[in-house]
């Protein structure tokens, strides 16, 4: 049950990403086309000419801001998608865990081998050292 809910929410999230992408791209395109259209010189207007020019100026400013906003929204979308991918890319995480555990295991094995070799060397040396130590007369000073 929870699995289906998660799948649904994931689907909804992906759809929302898709929708955001389309909306932003559409917003950039529409605003650009509108700005180009506003660049035409019109002969007959029902409003005053100065008013019309002010309106065109304001409209261009707003539309260019909208384009910038849509571009930044696209960047945010990219960031969100990256974040989503990083947080939900379980195969990659599993691979990393496997790799890390393999590395740790190898290292553990290497360390174990070194320790065993060291133990063997120390055991052999210690035996001789013990022989020498216990047969010497300098036990008091040595200890």
């Amino acid at each position, binding site marked *: 049950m929870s699995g289906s809910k998660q799948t649904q929410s994931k689907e909804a999230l992906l759809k929302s990403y898709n929708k955001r992408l389309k909306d932003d791209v559409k917003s950039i395109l529409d605003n650009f086309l509108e700005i180009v259209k506003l660049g035409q010189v019109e002969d007959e207007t029902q409003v005053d000419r100065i008013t019309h020019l002010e309106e065109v*100026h304001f409209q261009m400013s707003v539309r260019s801001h909208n384009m910038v906003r849509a571009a930044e929204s696209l960047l945010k979308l990219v960031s969100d998608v990256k974040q989503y991918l990083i947080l939900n890319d379980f195969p990659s995480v599993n691979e*990393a865990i496997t790799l890390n555990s393999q590395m740790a295991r190898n290292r553990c094995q290497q360390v174990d081998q070194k320790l065993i070799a060291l133990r063997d060397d120390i055991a052999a040396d210690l035996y001789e050292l013990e022989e020498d130590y216990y047969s010497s007369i300098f036990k008091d000073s040595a200890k």
Partner: protein
Amino acid sequence: MTDIRLEVASENAISEIHYDGHEVRQPPLSMSEQLSQFARRIDFSAVENGGSDEPGGKTGEDAESMEDDEEEEKPCQQPHWPLESVRNKIRNAHTEICVLHDLLQMVKEKKYLVLDLVQTPQPQPKLYIQFLSLKKSLSNASGILMQGAERIRSSQSSIARPSSDFHLDLLRLRKNWKLKKVAANIVGDLSYSAVGSNFKHNSFFEVTKSDDDVTLTTPLSALPGSSPSIGRSSLRVTVPPELEGSAYIFVCIRKDEEDLCSAQLNMLDGLATLNAQPNMSPSTEHWQQKLENAQNVLFCKELFSQLAREAVALRMDIPPLVVANQIAATIFPGIHLLIALCHSHPDSSRSRSSLTAPHNVLSNGTINELGSSSTTASSNTSTDHHSSSSLGGGVSSLKNLHDKVLEHSLHQLFHSYLKSSSPMPHPVYAPLHAHPTRRVAGPQGLDRQQLMQTVTHETLLEQIIKEAQHNFLRLRTMFVIDQLAKELKDPLIFSHWNLFNSPTQSCVRINIVTQGFDSVIRTTLVVQVFERSLRCVCRDGRVMTLSFEPQELLNLLRCQVAQHQTAAVQSFSKLMGWTVNCSEPCLGVGSAEPLGSASAVVLTSPAGNKQILVRSGPCTGVSVSVAAAPRNDFYPSAVVHERRWDQLPGAWQEVRLDSMEGRNFLAKIELLMAALTAQN
């Protein structure tokens, strides 16, 4: 052509014609009737049409429509009296004049209406103004777009640097830590729940994007696949305040302690900063280091809480004592195992950790008497902070206490505990899941004891207490053997410790030899050290189990040394050709030994006229006596064939070994035997 004159006939119109052809003419019109007839012929509609151009007049269309109406009304509207139409026209004219008068009056007053000139058509505006305005608008729009693009480019260029890429750091973080997105935040988990931990503690940390570029000097070598360098991290982690700082489990073995709970020591100042990098505030610590420290704190807390829980539930003769952040358990009479949780906050004002004072904790090398304590202390393995060279004197004294044996065991035990407590993978609809051993119990035919082992588990505290007991007993055994080896010059005691040990079992082989006579005799015994007991396997195969009291081992060793002397003399006599008359390992005659029993051997010279008695006791030492036969000559008879059966020894005389030449006892015996043999 002559003009034809058309005149109205001066005859009246015929109004009636009778049947007889008589015409009845109308009477001629009077003057008034003629005037009305002429007036009727005036067409006022033409006047109305001509006045449509006047202000306030009707439009042409309206006039036509009115004319049509009038034409339509003409046949049906007959004037009632002759000058009716004239009156109507005049009245209309009067009405219009009145309206005009009113209008003029209002305009004149200028209160409600003002007359103005009719606007003439505007001249066509000049297009270059419009062009300029549009150009300005477009340049403004392009400026805004350029600014936005520049901002995006700068942000992208900062992202392009791999050292400050938030997502790259997040990817590294994700590969090592558990992360999930909760609402708009990224939350990570430090707990060990994935490996079976049920510790209820706030272990969540939050990942945010750091706005300021902080230069870090943390070596990134701890990260897999990264090289040590000075890097910037665009990622910031926020751990719970109770997990900040550094922590470790302190384990030591102490002797006697009235002041077990009262002697406490505030954490040394230097210890708090051991983990932290020098000149680095906790906020600028690298996230990997910070998370590792926090997880280590969590691990120590979980381990200590588990130990404390077990200590409360543990049934022992002397129950363990849990006070604040310390657990004290009695492992031997007068010997205590102390486990403490030390946690230092980065903020010194919050540092409230405490340690038991180490002044009566002895290090391994300072055992000065039998039964004295040894000390092991543990440190944190993940953060080897004791390698720092900037430690104070108090810390360096603590450093000497750390041998990491019990700490390492504790960590290993807890790891195995977590691993064993995590349920095996099983179907969710399975009602119970059996222990893996129980699944194979049937096919492998396990007995009851083995089955019981699968359901009974030793607690962590019990295991660490056993290891501490073994550790302590091993060190004390080593100390006893070394002390005896130092004390005894003859014979020599060699001890060889076996390095193939388990945490609760170790083994030592003890050789007792006489210097220079190694090939003659060598007494070997093996001592196995367990948690609370020793097991000795002697040369003759006897197995003795000793308690943890050191005196028992000492007595055993002394007995073995005493027996070694008699056995050495016995073996050596074979080389010298002497005959062993009798040998008694447990002598029942003579003065009683305080411990154990003396052994004795009687030797006869090859000639049979000299005898040596060697008596060796664990406490009294070795005494040698000689006896000689009184007669030097021998005459064989039928009964006594050999000389040795004829010579009976006389009185025993003790030899003063101290005055004899020789490095050790066997050398002196050799000299003595040679001398006695030579006297023959």
